[in-house]
């Protein structure tokens, strides 16, 4: 054995190394993908939501329109990084899902293109919610067609309230405190209100809902920071959360580590009586296959603060086109057809938005669907469609969508979390966030 091994010479070693490399290359070549091969293929990138529905809609597009689509997806949590790398690296990318929060950044970087010159896309504006059209518009240009829209809802467990002898859900944040204390005293829940305030992409929506419902805004009409003003709702909202955690102990101090998904599961398990959740979560919460409180979850208008009017925050996502694609007219037209197929009517109906709603409860931004009987029946099976309409009418567009949003949000989120953890006062936290906003605004302008 030793003798045989000792004969192994350097050249043989190099041969083995080269062979191993070749085997590796050959072994994997069978897996080589044709993703970027065909130039007449539309490359479509999305986050991994409603994957089956997207696949089925793509398959129908290929069949009906005759254009091939290369559909790929990435997890939502990493999607933005992924797509930015592809933009920067010049990867083939024609149509992609875009969050309204990224619009100024993507436009200013020259990554996405306006769709104003495509009449087949712009004609759908009349049937879309104004809020959606506004959210897709930046510097007078529109950058896509809506994919879905939703808002932050205030939900409660009807049974928990009944057990605590509460006859009607709260209408103000003071009433939320009172009812939480009752529920806590009755031993029904240690922390009756579930707030998911971990530093993740959902955080801004939770904070905005709290601030808007307190009658506040983060910025004024000129786009300057208003959050540090004592008369605005931001400080009041933050102070309410601080008191809820430290004074009343009705919100868990661990809320700064609870993400939206974890919070959802905690609410589904019956650990809490109240929760702030995206509206579309009502469906899984009331699904007996997924939830311990199925059928008991109800929605009420977002509680109001001193100057509040039950406002909440709304958001939307849209189908966009890359700037590189727009530069090639033929390819841009192919891509526009796919955008229309998803964001407009497919064979005469808003099929994608409808199925997205009936399949998983994701909200739509096109008004005609409210008249669809399937949609109405679906809504009423787990929620009150009138309450949804009423709250949606009170949803406000986020006022912090700017090119510097991402950088500011780091400071802003830390400021909220520090205050909630007792490391700063509400005033100091909001002053820090406001100063950062104004400094970034100056820097970018």
């Amino acid at each position, binding site marked *: 054995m*030793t003798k045989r*091994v*000792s004969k*192994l*010479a*350097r050249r043989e*070693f190099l041969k083995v*190394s080269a062979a*191993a*490399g070749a085997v*590796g290359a050959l*072994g*994997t070549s069978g*897996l*080589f*993908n044709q*993703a970027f091969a065909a130039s007449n293929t539309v490359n479509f990138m999305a*986050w*991994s*939501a*409603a*994957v*089956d*529905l997207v*696949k*089925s*809609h793509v*398959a*129908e597009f290929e069949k009906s329109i005759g254009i091939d689509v*290369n559909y790929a*997806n*990435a*997890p*939502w*949590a*990493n999607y933005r*990084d*992924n797509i930015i*790398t*592809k933009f*920067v*690296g*010049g*990867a083939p990318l024609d149509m992609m899902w875009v969050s309204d929060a990224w619009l100024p950044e993507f436009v200013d970087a020259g990554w996405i293109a306006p769709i104003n010159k495509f009449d087949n896309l712009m004609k759908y504006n009349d049937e879309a919610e104004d809020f959606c059209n506004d959210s897709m518009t930046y510097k007078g240009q529109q950058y896509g067609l809506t994919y879905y829209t939703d808002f932050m809802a205030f939900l409660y467990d009807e049974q928990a309230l009944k057990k605590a002898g509460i006859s009607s859900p709260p209408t103000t944040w003071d009433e939320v405190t009172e009812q939480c204390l009752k529920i806590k005293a009755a031993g029904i829940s240690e922390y009756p209100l579930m707030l998911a305030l971990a530093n993740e992409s959902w955080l801004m929506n939770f904070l905005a809902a709290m601030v808007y419902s307190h009658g506040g805004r983060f910025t004024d009409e000129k786009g300057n920071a208003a959050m540090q003003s004592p008369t605005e709702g931001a400080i009041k909202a933050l102070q309410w959360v601080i008191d809820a955690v430290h004074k009343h102990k009705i919100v868990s101090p661990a809320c700064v580590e609870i993400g939206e*998904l974890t919070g959802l*599961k905690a609410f589904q*398990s*019956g*650990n809490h009586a109240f929760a702030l959740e995206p509206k*579309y979560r009502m469906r*899984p919460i009331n699904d007996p*296959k*997924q*939830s*311990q409180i199925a059928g008991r979850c109800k929605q009420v208008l977002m509680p109001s603060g001193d100057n509040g009017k039950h406002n909440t925050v709304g958001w939307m996502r849209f189908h966009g086109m890359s700037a590189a694609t727009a530069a090639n007219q033929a390819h841009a037209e192919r891509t526009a057809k796919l955008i229309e197929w998803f964001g407009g009517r497919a064979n005469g109906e808003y099929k994608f938005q409808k199925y997205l709603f*009936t*399949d*998983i*409860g*994701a909200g739509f931004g096109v008004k005609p669907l409210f008249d669809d009987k399937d949609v109405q029946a679906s809504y009423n099976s787990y929620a009150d469609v009138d309450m949804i309409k009423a709250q949606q009418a009170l949803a406000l567009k986020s006022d912090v969508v700017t090119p510097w949003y991402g950088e500011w949000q780091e400071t802003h989120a830390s400021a909220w979390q520090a205050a909630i953890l007792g490391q700063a006062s509400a005033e100091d936290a909001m002053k820090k966030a406001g100063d950062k906003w104004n400094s970034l605004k100056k820097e970018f302008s």
Partner: protein
Amino acid sequence: MSIQPTTFERGSEKYRTKSVWSERGRSIAIFTATMVILIYVLAPVAWLVSSSFQSEVEIVSVPPHWIPQEPTLENFDAIFFQEFEEVTYETRRTVDPAAGGYIPSTAKDLLPSMWNSFIVSVSVVILNLLVGIPAAYAMAKIRFWGRQASIYTILTTRVIPDIALVVPFFLVIKNLGLLDHVMSLIITYLAITVPFTVFILVSYFESLPDELDKAARVDGCSRFQTMINIFLPLAVPSLVAVTLFAFLASWNEFLLALMFTQTIASQTLPIIVASFTSDFTISFSFINAAGVVAIIPPVIIAIFFERYIVSGLTAGAVKG
């Protein structure tokens, strides 16, 4: 006449009794601490396994069911036996239980992605050894100009965070035409793992006496033969350590795989598992079943090489 114990004997007996109790107390303390640490380490794994056999409604029970009351194989069935069918409006999976639950249709991608992970990890391990062993041997036993600088340069490359390398790597991979190809991962993972491999092996080779090297050379061995016949057999523990390191680093890597892969032709296990968590409809029990499947290969490898792991990782840490 009774024999009374002397003061010394009584003291000695007391000491023995005290010593026995002290020993018992120590054993109990060690046992308790061991149990606490064991529970702390194993409880998440136990919950992972337990919840993978639970339905979604059972998984959110309060208090949690550590032993499933209504065990189900639905999750594993979706992973191992889901038949491929074209996704159409009619066959798409929805959240509606009547339509077949909300286990994603992409559950069938788990095994192919596992195969991709396996190919990438094994290739990275093999190439790591082929590149790392000669490099480490040369740096440890051959005195050449720039030797120390080479070692520090290799180590310095690992100071750069991976995220800073994503765009440069992406451009290289794109220009090589390897986007959405497992070769893109093999190439980039080598850049990450080889420096560690070399560092660990250099430390180990340096701990072996130079006399072995000299004796082999006197007996007529070439440098290459010395490395293969003398040093490699002695370096098995550290080779196992670097093998495990390279395998696990490749098996678990997420960031680069996310950037360079797009389809199941090249996507690895972490990407597919992560995609299950970000849909509108999420099944924790299914994700946990995927987690159970994902940890099987590393666990098997760890068990197989268990006796070499600690000695390999500490090898060269203390130089006499």
